[in-house]
Each structure stands twice: as structure tokens, then as C-alpha cells.
């Protein structure tokens, strides 16, 4: 194959944000090319500048904030950076199209999806509405939406996340662009849907023979989808090359770190056997949690959502039980029920005591022993409290006898334990990165030395390298204090690293349960098999 003229070539691009005097250089010297019909992945952690690079191509960065000190974005002989507003508008959507991460917010809720779908056709090709409609119906059908002609006149809220992303893809393909920029197109979706969307993108790429610039943080996705990859770190491309070569032989330390930060199993085989002899800490029997569906003027009950439907589980001291499932499977509700933070039926025995019928007032002093860490470290810390107040809150309740200085000593000790230090006592949550915040959230519960911690997606909002550190921290704390974890996640790689045993949930019910390694090696239920397959596990976990 002779070297072809690149479709898009970015030379020494620099992007700077901010106004006079307060600049920050977000992108420095980014250079890469995309050939026609090529699949290139741009990988990096949050803040590495990959989305900014993509937005610069279409000049979608806020014009009042952004400056391009030097660099060139060449696209078919034109420099996109030098085009005027009308010129770039002719490129957007027509020659280069983009799909975004969040399908929930990238469609306007006030218009039907049909209305939004025909918009690019009318704008760029001047066709009439009837032709546009037939063309878009074909495309919509091609993206695999069932009953496209029925869906055409519905509003975005009537579609699921995966369907919306299909609509976005159809919209992007409307004018048969030469380049499709996909900014984390599957991150907000469930794993099984992720796989479908990825397959769809792959098929369409071949069919339309367009180039795809895939922006992602997920290395498995890169391996699965792309031909070439650019690794970005703090505004620079640190390494680029063919996917197989780069993964087999990463040269830059950052690339190596990224590849190594995929979670490894943190549990030794003999530990599993030791734990089987530990006493039972938690026994949950036939738990039900139903939410009524009410309708009509008098809000009478017309049905119910069975969020948790007849679930039983048990957990030994020092053990981690993973709860896996897709969104809406009831795994978070189950966790809240076990901690009695949600109304439910069934029996819960914790440390030999029944929690089932205790009123909240009697439960409060016992909460010291079962604690929770939630998913989003940005919203789980009150923005108006300092770190000292946040971590000290539980101590004030459960150890009121401590003096102020004793309390501070304990806070400092636990902060050191989670890898933070004393100087942070008086700072507010917004001054920390996501990983540090999650450490604060962990410190808040560990300071009470509980017997059980509910971890509800504790690493899902974090970058991969930080994710690994937090997982290792959790394991260290578990070994040190002998705590049990109820670990809720949708991420099978994380659960494989952490859990001794696991249960798989779907629609409120347990579909399969077993020891982690056994279940991963030989899943029995077909849903578990689908889940494992969709998690892109086969793409080289080693």
C-alpha cells in the first residue's frame, strides 16, 4: 500500500485558554495525521487535552476563551484554524462530524428526534423535508433502531441511552462525512450496549469508508477498535504508533504506566480458603424492595418496580463480596437496603444481631460498624465543610468522649493511612483531585474502624491510573483492619481484582453467584456470559 495523502494533519498545534494575563496552555505541540478511512484512537486520562484537541478541529472551543498561538490543522488542503465562521460551518457536520459522550444531553429535549435528524441535511445539502426524511429513515434503520418510522416522531426522553447514541450516530452520518470524531461514545452506556455501539461504528466505518478519530480513556476499547493510537499526557502526544506494536512494546513511561494500570487480581488463592473459615458477619435473607408506580389524579397504585426481588446473600469477616450488574439491575438499591437506608422487606442479620426491625433511632449508634463509600467523590463530600470537619463528623457522633486534640490526632492518622497529609485538614473538597477526594471519602469511614464497608462504584468516576491506586489502598486497608467489603460495580475488571466471591444481578434478581475465579472461568448463566463477552475481556487481559 503506497503512502496516501493524509486526510487530516495536525501540526504543532498549541491551544491556550484564558484571558489576558491568566493563560493556561492546555495543548502544546500536538502533531498527528489521519489517513482516509483510518481508525485512530486518542487515549489519555482526564485533563490530558484529548477532547480539546478534537474540539479544536471543528473550532468548537469557546471563542472568547481560546487562543491558538501556533500550529496548523490541515484538512484536504485547507487550514481549518484559518477558516472564518462561515467556512468552518460548511465543514462541520458535512465533512467532519462529531458524536459526544453523553447521549442524554446531546439531543435537544424539546424537538422530536426526526426534527433534529433532518437538520444537517437541510442545512448542508438544501434538500426538501420529504427527501430528508426518507434518507434519514434509511440511516436510522441502518443504526439498528427497531421500528425507525415509529421512533422518528418521538422525543428524546422516550428513548434509552443506547438508542439515543444510535440517533446521534445517524445524525453524524447524515452528510456522509469523511471524518467522524467520536468523543467517548460509549462511556455513558452499559457494557452490553457498549459492545453493540462499537460494532455498529465499526460496520459503518467500513461501509462509508470514513476515517474515525476515537477519543477514549479505555485501553480495551483502543485495542478492540483502532488501527493506530496516540497517547496524550498533559497536552502533549507522548507516543504514537500502530496499536499492536504500541501495546506489545510501549516505549514511553506514561504509556507503560497506563497499560500496567489495568487492574490485576489483588487476592491470593490461599486467602480465599482462609476466609472460608471466618465467622459470618452479614446474612441477608430474601430481601425485597419494591417501589410503587402511581398514576392518575388520586395517585393510586398501578404497579410496582421490583428493584430488589428476593435476594439473599452472606458475607464473612474480611471478605469482599462483589455485586455486579448493569444500570437498573438494582445493585445500588440492594446496597442501600442492606445498610437500612432504603425501605425493604426481608431479614438482615449483622454481627449476630437482627437489623430488620430496628427503628432508625436505635440503628444510628450501630452505624459505626457498617459504613458506605459512594461513587461520585465530587458530590459525596459537602462542598462547604473542610476535610477535618468531613472526616471528623463520624468521630463526633460515635466517639463523643474524644477531646478536640484527640479527635484531630485520629483524623491525621487516618489521613496518613489513606495517603494524604496533615496540611490538608483545613482545605475544602474542591481543592482536591478526584482520586484525592475519594481518599477523603474512604478516610471518613475508615476512621470509625467499621466491620463492613459498602463500596458503591468507588472507582467508576476515576482515571485508570488513580483507579488502580484506590483499589490497592482499599485492599491494604482490608488486610490491615480485617474489614469486609460489599463491592458494587458494573466494571468486571475491577471486581475481578477485588472480590473473593461475587453475585451477578439483573432486573433485581440474582442470576448467578460463585467464587470470582470460578465464575470468570466458567460462567453458567447466559447473561453472565454475555456480560463477560461484552466487557472486552478477550482483548488481552494479560
Amino acid at each position, binding site marked *: 500500500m503506497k503512502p496516501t495523502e493524509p486526510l487530516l494533519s495536525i501540526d504543532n498545534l498549541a491551544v491556550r485558554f484564558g484571558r489576558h494575563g491568566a493563560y493556561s496552555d492546555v495543548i502544546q505541540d500536538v502533531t498527528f495525521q489521519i489517513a482516509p478511512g483510518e481508525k485512530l484512537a486518542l487515549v489519555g486520562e482526564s485533563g490530558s487535552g484529548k477532547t480539546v484537541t478534537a474540539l479544536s478541529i471543528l473550532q468548537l472551543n469557546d471563542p472568547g476563551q481560546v487562543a491558538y498561538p501556533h500550529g496548523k490543522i490541515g484538512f484536504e488542503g485547507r487550514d481549518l484554524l484559518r477558516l472564518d465562521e462561515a467556512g468552518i460551518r460548511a465543514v462541520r457536520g458535512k465533512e467532519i462530524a462529531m458524536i459526544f459522550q453523553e447521549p442524554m444531553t446531546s439531543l435537544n429535549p424539546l424537538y422530536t428526534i426526526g426534527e433534529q435528524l433532518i437538520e444537517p441535511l437541510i442545512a448542508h445539502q438544501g434538500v426538501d423535508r420529504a427527501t430528508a426524511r426518507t434518507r434519514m429513515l434509511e440511516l436510522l434503520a441502518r443504526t439498528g433502531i427497531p421500528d425507525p418510522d415509529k421512533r422518528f416522531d418521538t422525543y428524546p426522553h422516550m428513548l434509552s441511552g443506547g438508542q439515543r447514541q444510535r440517533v446521534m450516530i445517524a445524525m453524524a452520518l447524515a452528510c456522509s462525512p469523511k471524518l467522524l470524531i467520536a468523543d467517548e461514545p460509549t462511556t455513558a452506556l452499559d457494557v452490553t450496549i457498549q459492545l453493540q455501539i462499537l460494532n455498529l461504528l465499526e460496520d459503518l466505518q467500513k461501509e462509508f469508508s470514513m476515517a474515525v478519530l476515537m477519543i477514549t480513556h479505555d485501553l480495551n476499547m483502543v485495542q478492540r477498535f483502532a488501527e493506530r493510537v496516540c497517547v496524550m499526557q498533559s497536552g502533549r502526544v507522548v507516543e504514537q504508533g500502530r496499536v499492536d506494536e504500541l501495546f506489545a512494546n510501549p516505549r514511553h513511561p506514561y504509556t507503560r504506566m497506563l497499560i500496567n494500570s489495568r487492574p490485576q487480581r489483588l487476592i491470593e488463592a490461599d486467602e480465599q480458603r482462609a476466609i472460608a473459615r471466618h465467622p459470618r458477619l452479614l446474612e441477608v435473607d430474601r430481601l425485597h424492595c419494591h417501589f410503587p408506580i402511581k398514576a392518575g389524579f388520586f395517585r393510586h397504585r398501578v404497579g410496582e418496580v421490583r428493584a430488589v426481588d428476593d435476594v439473599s446473600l452472606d458475607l464473612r469477616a474480611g471478605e469482599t463480596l462483589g455485586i455486579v450488574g448493569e444500570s437498573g439491575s438494582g445493585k445500588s438499591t440492594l446496597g442501600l437496603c442492606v445498610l437500612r*437506608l432504603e425501605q425493604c422487606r426481608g431479614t438482615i442479620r449483622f454481627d449476630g444481631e437482627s437489623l430488620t426491625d430496628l427503628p432508625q433511632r436505635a440503628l444510628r449508634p450501630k452505624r459505626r460498624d457498617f459504613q458506605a*463509600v459512594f461513587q461520585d467523590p465530587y458530590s459525596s463530600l459537602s462542598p462547604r465543610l473542610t476535610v477535618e*470537619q468531613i472526616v471528623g463528623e463520624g468521630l463526633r457522633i460515635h466517639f463523643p468522649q474524644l477531646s478536640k486534640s484527640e479527635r484531630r490526632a485520629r483524623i491525621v492518622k487516618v489521613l496518613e493511612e489513606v495517603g494524604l497529609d496533615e496540611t490538608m485538614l483545613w482545605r475544602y473538597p474542591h481543592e482536591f483531585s478526584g482520586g484525592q477526594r475519594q481518599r477523603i471519602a474512604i478516610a471518613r469511614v475508615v476512621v470509625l474502624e467499621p466491620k463492613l464497608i459498602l463500596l458503591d462504584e468507588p472507582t467508576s468516576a476515576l482515571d485508570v491510573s488513580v483507579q488502580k491506586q484506590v483499589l490497592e489502598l482499599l485492599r491494604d486497608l482490608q488486610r490491615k483492619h480485617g474489614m469486609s467489603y460489599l463491592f458494587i460495580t458494573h466494571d468486571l475488571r475491577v471486581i475481578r481484582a477485588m472480590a473473593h466471591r461475587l453475585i451477578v444481578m439483573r432486573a433485581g434478581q440474582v442470576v448467578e453467584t460463585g467464587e470470582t475465579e470460578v465464575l470468570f472461568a466458567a460462567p453458567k448463566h447466559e447473561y453472565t456470559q454475555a456480560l463477560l463477552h461484552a466487557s472486552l475481556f478477550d482483548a488481552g487481559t494479560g
Partner: protein
Amino acid sequence: MSTAASGLALHLSPAQRRWRRFRANRLGFASLWLFGVLFILSLFAEVLSNDRPLVVHYQGQYYFPVVRDYPETAFGGDFDTPTDYLDPYVKRLLSKDGNWALYAPNPYRYDTINYFTDHPNPSPPSAVNLLGTDDRGRDVLARLLYGFRLSVLFGFALTVVGTFIGVLLGALQGYYGGRFDLAFQRVIEIWNSMPELYLLIIFASIFQPSVLLLIILLSLFGWMGLADYVRAEFLRGRNMEYVKAARALGVTNTAIMWRHLLPNGMTPVITFLPFRISGAILALTSLDFLGLGVPPTTPSLGELLSQGKDNIEAWWLSITTFGVLVGALALLIFIGEALREAMDTRRS
């Protein structure tokens, strides 16, 4: 994230950092200074502007007329009534034979009538009455000083009471939600539809009008606007993950409301604070202007404005009052702006 930026502020406690942020707003900081000085001066209005001398030295003895009443006979006068220290006869008594009297810088109280002006009332500014007199011969400067103090104190009192009730009821509504919220929202709607101004007129004719009565009446209605905002903040906040985390920690409802939801729900309260104070001052002024407010002898900006309207040619009445009102309200709003920025923990 902003580790480098906040490096300097690391060793500061939250209160110190709040103060730094407040000072960073220079307009607000200057306004606080100016307003503080004016307000403290007005608190000592009795010393600055009084028709009684601060100290009298009469026949080897010291007298303090500001704190005690003395009959005229004590100073060798003829009557057994309280002394009128501005009477030229008394002034003469107090200045001969080594006697002396130290008068306040502005020798008039808000209700002192100057019977000795050269012009008919209202008399224009002169060396005797720096800002002239009103239509009853009372010194305008004295009335402005006392009126400013009363207005500001009234504004503070009304704001504190209204904010307290509004935050409390809004918080309860928002936190408990459901039926309590629904029922209470109806109560607010009914209460809101009561004609406030008519009630004020009716009450003004039943009771002796007084500052306290006005505070009570205006507080009865003033809390509703704020309660709505606080309710919305609490409704939003109670579903946040940090509240869930606090509940999982075993925190009681009261503590969740106090430590978690209240600080996060204070944004509308603090944003509205300066507007509430100026609103309260304006309410008092307007009621006085309409003649529904405080009793006639009380020093009041509104009453001065209404005199300015009746005596349109006496420019010193309306312009000075207008200046004091606008100045005070503007300073309060600048201070409020800086306060809002200072309370925002997200600013470094």
C-alpha cells in the same frame, strides 16, 4: 488541582480565609469601613448631636445633663422645670464666673426646636443649623443622624427576624418534603394573599404606632420570599450523595440539616441579605412617607422626604435625605456582594 494557588492559604483556618476573600473585594471592603464608621458614629448620636451639654461646670461642681435631668434652678435659673440649655439666658448663666459648659458638636437633638432662627421655617443651611431646619424648626442634620441610626437598626432587626423565620420554615419544608411540604405550601399561599398594606393601615389605627409594632407586622409577611428559596435548596440538597453519606454515617436529621444542608443552602440567603436590609430600610421610609409608620416625633428619613415633598423649594430637606438613603443602600449592597464572595468556599 489548585495546590499551587492555595499554597499560601494552607496554614489559614477557614475563618481567616473567608476574611481574606472578603478583603480581596476592595470596593466591598472600603464600603464596610465607611459604613462601619458612619454606623458607629450614629450609635453615639447622643454625644454628637444633642441639645444638652455633655458636661457642665457650675460653681465648682460637675453636672452631666446627657445622662440626668437637672431643673433650671440648679443653675441659678427661675423655673423648677428641666433646663433648656439653648435658652440664651441659661447659656449666659453657664458661661459667667468661671462656669462653663461643653456642648455637643451639633447642639440639637432630633426633636429640638430652634426658636431662635433668623429665617422662617424651614430655614436654609446656615452657621447655626448646618443643613437647615425642617418645617417645624428642627435641625435637619440631627434628624438625619438619628434617622439613619433608626433606619439601619430597623433594617438589621427586620432582616434577622425575617431570615431566621424564613430559613427555619423553608428548611423544615424542604427537608421533610411530602405531605408536610404540600400542606405548608398552601398555608403560605393563603398567608401571602393577605393584603399587607391594608393590614398595616388597620393596625396603625388600632394600636399606637411604634417601631416594635412595625417590626412585628412586617416580619409576619417578610419571611415568605426567602422560605421558598431555602425550601428549594433543601429539596435539592437532601437527595445529594453527601447527605446519603451522612445518613450512612449515622448523623441525626437535625445535624444533617444544620451541618450539611444549611451551609449549602445559604447561597440565596446570603445573596438576598443586602437586598433584604435595604428593602427593610426602604419599607420603613415609604411607610413613614405615607404617614403610616413611626409616630411623628421619631426621627425618620421617610418623614423628612415627605416634608421635602410638601416644601419643594426647601431643597436641603429632600437632597440631603435622598443622599443619605442612596449612600446607605449602596454601601450595604457593596458589602453584601463582598460577603457573598467571601462565603463562597470555592474561591481561592
